[in-house]
Structure formats: structure tokens, C-alpha cells
């Protein structure tokens, strides 16, 4: 009987250890090269890629692109599994927030040589290229930028005719727009993805321009950041729904879509969701307000783009596809459909950019010489796990009143400081 029990337990463990993967491209015998492309945010933008792939295949009849839409929430895990199993796609959507991790696993092919010979050379936004290069230790271009993003606060114009200019005004607005029983001034992202938003809010309030001070210590627990978080956490359940503590992106957008929430912090990427729920004329967006210093400070969003994987058997076809995606026409099409900032500088001058008010707000804010851009340490391979698995539950404790904002930020700062020191040591810094 003991043996039978042991097998039962063994079986459970074996099932838990199972995994899955997806194949890379192949030559199907018809002379056509098949390449696999993983969209790192499959779902709402799948039709955009389907259209672009159709155009690409018409222009390149010998190449077939197999589209795989990976949900954004599981994309890192999917890539890690694929790398571990040697089963990566030919091309994949990758952002700088997990680029360092993939490069650390030696999964990607640098694009420098390819770009030097490509017609798109010189046409991709330099800040985005610099940001990509700054993410990896060897300074190579492992990701070809497609788009950039910026944090904004979306609001309903019917409820809030004039957007707040400072965080103090924001807190006042959030309070006055809350009306029992179910009208709320604001919604906090308390679930997956919470930490990045809190970081963006805190630094825009405190005006601190570096993530680490000269000694390598994290500035996350600066008293001004603590002051902000204390104010923000006090909104929970007072001016926000109780369900916010577990709010991830879909839940937060769905809540905002009900029309019962006046303001919601996200980035340009959710534009289409809001248009669908409310109509383009009903929604507005403002950049994260300035704090008491009056300095406009924004935290740089990850650059999103395309990477060719080292394992690909069809790198030439893969580069061709990447080149097509970041060309003026495709890049303009993609970003106009998603409402984000194009990486292709020629596409940036297209008329639709100026015609979308939220995008104009973002482009103007980024172009304003008075704006300070703080770069998070995307180069730390641990940055993603520190700001997600390690500290998201702690942020929930802050909202629930089980942890003080100071203690939470001290913990986060310590983790970042340690990771920075370890990274520097590992890279001879």
C-alpha cells in the first residue's frame, strides 16, 4: 500500500512538472519559409498584426508568418519556458522591461549589423534606441523599437470638465467626484502591474530624477515618495472601490468602462478600450501631475519592439519581417490603431498623431524641455520580479492597512539597492 501511495504522490508531482512550448519556424517543402511570430500582448491588437502580416505576405510571397498571440500577463513566463526548452519563435514582441532577462539567457540576436544595412537605419527614434541599448550590459541593440508609451490619467469629461494640474488638485478632485453609493473619483491598480504605476506616480510627485543615488542606494523610500504613497493609499475605499486591491489591467479597465469611475491611471495603450466603452469624445487624458516642487517628472515606460531569436533557422526572413514592421507605413498603421507613439520618426510626423489629443499630450510632454525623464533600472534582470512577484502582495498589504507605506518602500528600496549592487559586481562595476 505504501508503494501505491508513493506512486500517487509521484504522479501528482510529475503532473506539476509538465510544461508546454511552441515550435519555431520551418520550411514546409513548398519552397515557402515559415517564420513564427509571438505577439507579446495578444488580444485587442491581434487584428492589427493580422492585417500587417497579410500585407507582408503579399509583398513577400515566399515567406509565411505564423502569428501567435501571447497574453501579456504570461508572456515572460512563456518566453522563459521557450528559452529553457530551446523552442523559441523566430521573431517576438519584446519590451525593455524583460529584455535584460532574455539577453542574460543569451536568447536574442543583436540587430546592430542588420540595422546598419537596412533602409530604416536613421529613421528610428534615437531616445528609444538609446533606451534599448542602455538596458543591456554590452550596449547592443537586441530589440528594434516599434513603439513607446507614456503614463497618463484617463478621465471622463462629463464628470471632470477640467483636469487637475497638480497632485493636490488630483486628490481634491478624487474626493469631490466620489458619491455614494457607487460613484468613485479614482481607481487604484492594486493587483498585477501595481508597482510600476505607483513608481510612476511617486516620482512625478517627488520630482526625484534618479532611481539610485551616487552611492548606489535606491531613492524609492525617499520621504517625499513615502508622503505620496501615504496620501494615495488613504484613498483606498474612501474614494475608490473596495475591489481595487485586486485590480489588474482588465479589471481596472472594465471598472472604468462602467462609467462609475472618474479617473484611472494607466498608459496610452488602453486608448481603444476607453473609446469602445465611452466614445472618443467622452474621454480625456492628462500626464501625471506635478508635485509640490512643480517640476514635471515622468518615469520612462518600457520601449516595446521586436527581437529576432538566436535559435531561429530563418534569421534573414525574420529580419525582413522586423524591417517591414518598423517601416514608416507599417509603424504608422500599428501605432495609429493602438494610439501609441511610433518609433519611426517619419511616422511620428503623420497627421493622425496630432489629431489624437491624448497622443498629442504625450508627445508634447515628452518634447517639453522642462520635463525630467527618470529611467527605471530595466537593465537589472531582477527588476521585473522585484516589482511584480516580490512586492505586489506587499502593496496590497499597504492598501489593506496591514503594512505602513514607509515599511513597504523600505523593503522595495532594499531589494533594488541589493540587486543594483549585485549586478554591478557581476558586471565588474
Amino acid at each position, binding site marked *: 500500500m505504501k508503494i501505491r501511495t508513493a506512486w500517487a*504522490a509521484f504522479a501528482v508531482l510529475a503532473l506539476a512538472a509538465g510544461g508546454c512550448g511552441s515550435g519555431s519556424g520551418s520550411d514546409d517543402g513548398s519552397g515557402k519559409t515559415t517564420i513564427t511570430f509571438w505577439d507579446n500582448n495578444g488580444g485587442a491588437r491581434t487584428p492589427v498584426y493580422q492585417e500587417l502580416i497579410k500585407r507582408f505576405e503579399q509583398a513577400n510571397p515566399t515567406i509565411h508568418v505564423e502569428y501567435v498571440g501571447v497574453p501579456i500577463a504570461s508572456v515572460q513566463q512563456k518566453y522563459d519556458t521557450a528559452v529553457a526548452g530551446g523552442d523559441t519563435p523566430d521573431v517576438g514582441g519584446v519590451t525593455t522591461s524583460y529584455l535584460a532577462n532574455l539577453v542574460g539567457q543569451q536568447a536574442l540576436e543583436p540587430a546592430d549589423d542588420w540595422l546598419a544595412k537596412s533602409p530604416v537605419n536613421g529613421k528610428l527614434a534615437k531616445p528609444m534606441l538609446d533606451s534599448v541599448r542602455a538596458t543591456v550590459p554590452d550596449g547592443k541593440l537586441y530589440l528594434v523599437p516599434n513603439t513607446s508609451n507614456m503614463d497618463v490619467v484617463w478621465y471622463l469629461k462629463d464628470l471632470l470638465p477640467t483636469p487637475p494640474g497638480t497632485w493636490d488638485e488630483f486628490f481634491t478632485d478624487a474626493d469631490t467626484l466620489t458619491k455614494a453609493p457607487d460613484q468613485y473619483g479614482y481607481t487604484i491598480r492594486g493587483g498585477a502591474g501595481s508597482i510600476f504605476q505607483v513608481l510612476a506616480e511617486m516620482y512625478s510627485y517627488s520630482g526625484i530624477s534618479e532611481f539610485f543615488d551616487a552611492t548606489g542606494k535606491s531613492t524609492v523610500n525617499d520621504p517625499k515618495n513615502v508622503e505620496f504613497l501615504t496620501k494615495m493609499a488613504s484613498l483606498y475605499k474612501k474614494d475608490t472601490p473596495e475591489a481595487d*486591491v485586486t485590480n489588474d489591467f482588465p479589471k481596472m479597465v472594465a471598472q472604468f468602462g462602467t462609467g462609475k469611475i472618474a479617473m484611472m491611471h494607466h498608459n496610452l495603450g488602453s486608448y481603444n478600450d476607453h473609446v469602445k466603452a465611452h466614445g472618443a469624445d467622452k474621454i480625456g487624458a492628462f500626464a501625471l501631475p506635478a508635485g509640490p516642487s512643480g517640476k514635471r517628472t515622468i518615469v520612462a515606460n518600457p520601449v516595446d519592439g521586436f527581437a529576432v531569436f538566436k535559435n531561429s533557422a530563418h534569421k534573414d526572413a525574420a529580419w525582413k519581417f522586423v524591417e517591414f514592421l518598423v517601416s514608416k507605413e507599417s509603424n504608422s498603421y500599428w501605432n495609429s490603431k493602438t494610439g501609441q507613439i511610433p518609433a519611426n520618426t517619419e511616422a511620428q510626423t503623420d497627421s493622425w498623431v496630432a489629431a489624437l489629443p491624448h497622443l498629442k499630450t504625450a508627445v508634447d510632454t515628452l518634447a517639453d524641455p522642462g520635463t525630467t525623464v527618470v529611467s527605471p533600472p530595466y537593465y537589472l534582470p531582477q527588476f521585473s*520580479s522585484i516589482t511584480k512577484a516580490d512586492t505586489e502582495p506587499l502593496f496590497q498589504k499597504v492598501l*489593506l492597512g496591514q503594512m505602513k507605506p514607509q515599511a513597504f518602500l523600505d523593503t522595495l528600496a532594499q531589494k533594488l539597492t541589493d540587486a543594483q549592487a549585485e549586478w554591478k559586481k*557581476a558586471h565588474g562595476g
Partner: protein
Amino acid sequence: MATMRRKAVPYLLISPTVALIAAFLVYPIGSVAYYSLQNRNLTRPWADGFAGLENFRRMLFEDELFWHSLGFTAKWVIVEVGLQLLLGLALALIVNESFIGRALARSLVFSPWAVSGVLTTGIWILLYTPGTGVLRFLGRPEAAVLGNPDTVFPAVIVAELWRGVPFFAILLLAGLQGIPGELYEAASVDGAGRLRRFRHVTLPQLRDAIVLATLLRSVWEFNNVDLLYTLTGGGPAQVTTTLPLYVAQRAVDSKDFGYGSALTMAGFVILLFCSILYLRLSRFGAQR
């Protein structure tokens, strides 16, 4: 030659099974055991290498969350399996009686078992959604039961009960149908009432079925990932994090596979030990 061939036949016959067990059990378990002794963290590739028992030391002496998740797992398994057994037995007894519409009642009792785990959580997420969920009938439409540390435990217990009770009901009903009618008749002749018949005939006859169902369900509930993962993700603030969920967080989300493997080995040993102990104490399958 012929003798040798005859000797080889049994081995040949069991070789497919041995090969399958090696591929699907021995290898994965061996690799988890191997990684539990390694530093294997995708975000710190420079620190990879042999770790000895360091992962286990960290787990036992430094990791509060390990102990917290273990405590919650025990609470989850005991409450969940206990309630499922009681309600499942009650349902099995009811649908074992003869009444009009019994076939329909049986189908209804068993139907939640046929619903997939993710779909079950989908249903319960909708039921618990603030504003539109079932709580508006209780006068608290905006309450977020899954976001409140005080209400999240009963909420997930109810959801899992809905799915788990039919399992007990099915197994116990099968057991009930296997009890010979003469035993009840004899007990009646001896003057036993309904309660005494239940206590002295039904329960002893159901013992093996109860032991097996409880053991299987305990292992499953211990390893339950789908419902808790999709319903709460182990939250809010990790109050509903079971050991397997914690393994998923450390290994998959934090990419610390070495430490995740050590946690898995802990779960494995605990389950093995509890299973053996339970079967010994209950003397499962013993001739009476």
C-alpha cells in the same frame, strides 16, 4: 537459448510501463530533486551553481511565507475536505433513496463535477463581482469578497465546495449501492432504527470508499492550483497562498527555479508522509 527467451518475456512485457514511468515520473522528480540542490535563478544567472542544502535552510529558517503558505494549505485541506465529505455523504444518502425524479436529482448533484476548473472559477468570479454579482441580493452590492482578507476564505471555500461535493457524492453513492440489502434487513429485524442502521451498517460498509475519497481529495486539494490561482491568485496580500501557489510564485513568477524546486520537494515529502500515515491509521483495505 529458449530458456533465456522465456525469462526475458516478462521483462519485455513490463518494459513499456517501466519506460513510461521512467520518462514521466522518475525523470521529472529526479530533476526537481536535482534543482532543489542548485542555485538556479534566471534573473541571477551569474550566481547559478551547486547550493547544497542552502535552499532548504532558507526555506525552513528564513522564509515566513513558506510557513504561512503551509499553514494556509493545512487549513484549506482540512476545512475543504471535511465539509465536502459531510455534504457529499448527505447528498449521496438523499439520492440513494427512491423518490420521483431521482434520476434528474442525481444528474444535478453530479453536474458541477463535469465543469472544468477554469470554467468553475469563471462562474464564481462573475458571482462575486462587485456591483453585478450575487452580493447585490444581500444588500452589499459593492463589497469585494475576494479582495477582503476577512471574507476571501469563506468565499473560496464555497466555490471549491460547489465543485468538490459531487466527487464525494459519486464515490459514496457507488459505495452505498454496493451494500447488500440483507444487512439492513437483518439490522431491522434486530430492532435497529434508521440512525443505528446508518451507524452500524452504512458507515462501516462505506469505510473504504470514505478513506479512498478523502485521501484522493486531500491530495488534490493540497495541490489545488486552478481555482485559487484564477479566483484570487493567492491574494489579497497572500492570505490565500497555498504551498503549490507559492511554488508557482517563486519558480515561475520570480524565476527562482532552485528555490521553487526545494519548496516542491517539501510539498512532496509532506504529501507522501501524510498519505502513508493516513492509510496506516485507517487500515485501508484491511480484511474485516
